[in-house]
């Protein structure tokens, strides 16, 4: 679809632009439709920029397999972790004629908030990295590329207990949104608090990063003489906290959730990140495909891709394959996704064979990574 071909999507997307939401690319996958002719099938990706880069690579790779008749992709960048912008994007996207599916959004809160728009319009939503358990209840059209928080919490606690001796005083710092609250609850459920007493259990708000009271958190950590920090929040806030924490508490171990995988895209990242361990969805060095993808990604951004980008890549490729197979409605896409591993082979993604549970959750294990002194783990 060319930007000027159709008024309505353009007007909707122009509305998004006016609201400060960057509509990055209108990609005509085939160029087959004549000028002015409407395409009937549309795929959208609504996420942060690195997710969109991964999507772009996926589209390019899919095109190499051959054209898909009458199909367009809309890429919309999310510049906020808050739910409000995600709602606005979702509200406008569902008005795009022919919209079959959306890959997005960037986090649990945004995905959860937007999910009701898609479900009520019969548009499939694949959230690349949303782990909040409540997302499983979002609706029949809501899928995600990752399992819910209990899997991550189990992996995180297992790694924590393996890395630290019992009796380690544990601080649980979480972002008080759908992601952090849920992950905190799952972690506390998995954690042997007798062996690893939680001496600090502090939420922080992340409506705006500046809201994080780093000083208070560090003082609390100091007062409690914590031995380990479980960071159940996102990287920008941790990037604020870590310098102060390192100064106050030295090299206190920091274990983070999957949200830390975005660390490579944090601007002004310093050495204080060294040693931080976090869970990622995929070991990008595990297969040649992942390494290749990561290198291609690095060629664009200068940093390697993380698991979130690989999952986005797979999500986009999966939806493109679905459309190529003939799905021409949200319902057809949904049925295709549910058929994976149930009469249809699992989708061969670069992150591994992909199937979805009845709740729309992908089944996979996490991998614990540690940030090295330079750009590597």
């Amino acid at each position, binding site marked *: 679809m060319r930007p000027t071909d159709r008024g309505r999507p353009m007007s909707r997307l122009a509305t998004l632009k006016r609201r400060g939401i960057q509509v990055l690319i209108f990609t005509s996958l085939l160029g087959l439709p004549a000028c002015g002719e409407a395409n009937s099938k549309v795929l959208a990706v609504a996420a942060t920029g690195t997710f969109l880069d991964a999507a772009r690579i996926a589209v390019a790779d899919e095109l190499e397999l051959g054209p898909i008749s009458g199909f367009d992709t809309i890429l919309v960048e999310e510049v906020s972790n*808050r*739910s*409000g912008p995600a*709602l*606005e994007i979702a*509200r406008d996207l569902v008005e795009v004629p022919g919209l079959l599916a959306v890959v997005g959004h960037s986090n649990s809160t945004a995905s*959860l*908030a937007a999910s*009701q*728009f898609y479900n*009520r319009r019969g548009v499939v939503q694949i959230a690349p990295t949303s782990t909040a358990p*409540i997302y499983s*209840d*979002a*609706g029949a059209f809501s899928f995600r590329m990752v399992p819910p928080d209990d899997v991550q919490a189990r992996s995180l606690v297992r790694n924590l207990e393996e890395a630290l001796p019992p009796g380690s005083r544990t601080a649980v710092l979480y972002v*008080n*949104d*759908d992601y952090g*609250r849920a992950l905190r609850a799952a972690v506390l459920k998995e954690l042997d608090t007798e062996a690893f007493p939680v001496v*600090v*259990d*502090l*939420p*922080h*708000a*992340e*409506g705006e990063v500046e*809201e994080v*009271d780093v000083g*208070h958190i560090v*003082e*609390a950590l100091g*007062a409690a003489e914590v031995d380990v920090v479980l960071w159940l929040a996102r990287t920008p806030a941790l990037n604020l906290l870590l310098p102060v924490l390192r100064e106050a508490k030295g090299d206190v171990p920091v274990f983070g959730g999957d949200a830390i995988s975005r660390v490579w895209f944090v601007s002004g990242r310093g050495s204080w990140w060294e040693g931080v361990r976090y869970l990622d969805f995929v070991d990008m060095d595990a297969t040649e495909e992942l390494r290749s993808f990561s290198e291609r990604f690095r060629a664009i951004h200068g940093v390697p891709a993380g698991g979130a980008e690989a999952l986005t890549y797979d999500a986009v490729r999966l939806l493109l394959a679905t459309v190529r197979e003939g799905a021409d409605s949200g319902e057809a896409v949904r049925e295709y996704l549910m058929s994976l591993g149930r009469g249809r082979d699992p989708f061969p993604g670069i992150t591994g064979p992909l199937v979805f549970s009845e709740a729309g959750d992908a089944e996979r294990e996490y991998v614990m990574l540690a940030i090295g002194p330079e750009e590597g783990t």
Partner: protein
Amino acid sequence: MSTGPGSRVGRGAPTSLQTKVLSVGWAVAFLVLVGGGILFILSLGDRNDLAAATDTFVEEQRVADRIQRAVLRQIASTSLLPTGDVGRTRSELRESSDEVYGQIRRYLFLDLSPAQRLQLEEMAEEHQRLEVAGARTTDLIERGLLAEAEASRDAVALHAFRLLDKMETFLQMRENDLDTLRDRQGATVQALLAGMAVVALLFVLGTLLLVWVLNRRVGRPFQELALASERIAGGDLDVRLPPGADLESRIVTAGFNRMAESLRRTTSELEDRNRELTETLATLHDAQAELVQSEKLSAVGRMTAGLAHELNNPLASVLGYGQLMADHLDGRPTVDAHELKPFIDLLLDEAVRAQHLIRNFLRFSRKSEATLAPVPLRDPLEVATTLRGYSFQQAGLELRVEEVPDVSVRADPEMLQSVVLNLVNNAFDALSPAGKGALTIRGEKAGRSVRLLFEDDGPGLDRPDRVFDPFFTTKSVGEGTGLGLTVVHRLVSLFGGTVRAENRPEGGARFMLTLPVSAPRVEPEGPEVEKAEAADPPGEGMTALDEAGPGGSLGPRILVVEDEAPLRDLQERLLDRLNAEVWTATNVDEARVVLAEKEVDIVLSDVKMPGESGMALYRWVVESRPELAESFLFVTGDVSDPELVALAERRPELFIHKPFDIADYLARVSELMGSSANGRGE
């Protein structure tokens, strides 16, 4: 309506009116049902929406209450710090926060507008800040940083109130939804009312359409049919209906037109048949009259012997007494009138007797049209006994007339006479071979009828059931026509009566006539036999003539036209008694000469004369001398001329029947003289 067989060619087979009416009915019912169904579905949808919205609102209100309570608990928990149990406070805050979070997230799956979802997310974020502030407050208190905790506690309250405000805004949005729904309900109600009005209008229009169709396709054709029927009933058999638009009306109009055509054709045929029947009936009537007359003539022939004897007796007496008078007068210069008186009386009696015989015979033999009128029942019996008494006596038989009611019956006099004579003759024929026996005639009233019984003691009837059949007779050839009793039966039927034949148990035959009784007729004045009988006896009349004597003042001028010299002389003599100036003529030609040359006041004319008849003279007088037409009298014994008979029935005052009574003759002429004198005096 058309009087011609109009048609509508090329319109194809008409649709059944029943189908059309049913179609209109079904269409109306369908429209009403569809309209009602749409209204019902619309109302059902809105009602369900309202019910769901109400349930949602109630649920949301509960959620909002829980959130408010949880927030208030959070405020209250932090307000107790730092004096309270910090651990318990933290726990309460956690529980309250979880409660608020859970309740807010319950909204996530509701059907919210984008704005509401944004507001909800703002609530969630505000709650995040509240939780953070609450956790921070407890942490600061635990660490003894009360001043900072105080500020943090204020932040808790601040975020709590902000949360409540945002929730209030959110709830207001939801209430706005309810208001919108309420407005939509109101609009729906109005739409329902409008829809009901439309449905009602459709129903009314449909009903009117149905009535219009029924009136046009049923009422109007039936009206035309009724008018056409009335026209046919009025005799207009050419009326036709145009073919109807519907199958039924086409069938009806086609059937009506066929019926009208059939009726017209049948009527035409009936008219032809009726004309033929009328002609046939007239022929039959003439034949019947001829038969009756023939039977009469037959009876006349058979009565001739008796009549001759009956006439011979008085004639013999007249002859005898006349000769005695001639002998008595012979050689005597003078005669004592007293000596002649007995002879003259006898002559007169015998002449009157002969007169009765002749008149009755003539009345019987007269051929005339039936004229039903009251007839004294005894009259025909008297005539029959007069005519047939001698025959019975000569044959050794007895003819008895016993008690007969003095009543009149409705009949034609001559025909009733014929009936009685036929029955008498029939009895005579049956009894005469044995030379003994009797016929007894008696009558009796039976309600409004009278029965007349003819009973004889003869051999009886072989086939009583066939005696009235034409030409059924047991007589020898030449003794009868075989039509006598048939004529009796038909004439009695004509009178409205019945006749029955049977054999008497004691032997012999019985004929029973039943005739309707009628009021007696007032006989018109005229020269009837009865009147003559009622007049002065001949002897007394002679006396009267003697007393009147010749001479007197100048009388009227009278022309007597008579070919028989004795009668001409007799009339001259009688008219002389009236002091009349009399001219005579022997035929019509002479009469015309006299009338041309003389002043004549009265014309007395015979009918049958050599040359032209008296009727020719009368017609000439009516035409040439109309002033004498009312002074013209026929003096005749002829009843055979139909024209004369018709004139006699119409103008009986113009006739003096031969043989006439002198007194009656003179009275009639005197009466005419008075009229003539008055005419002359004018």
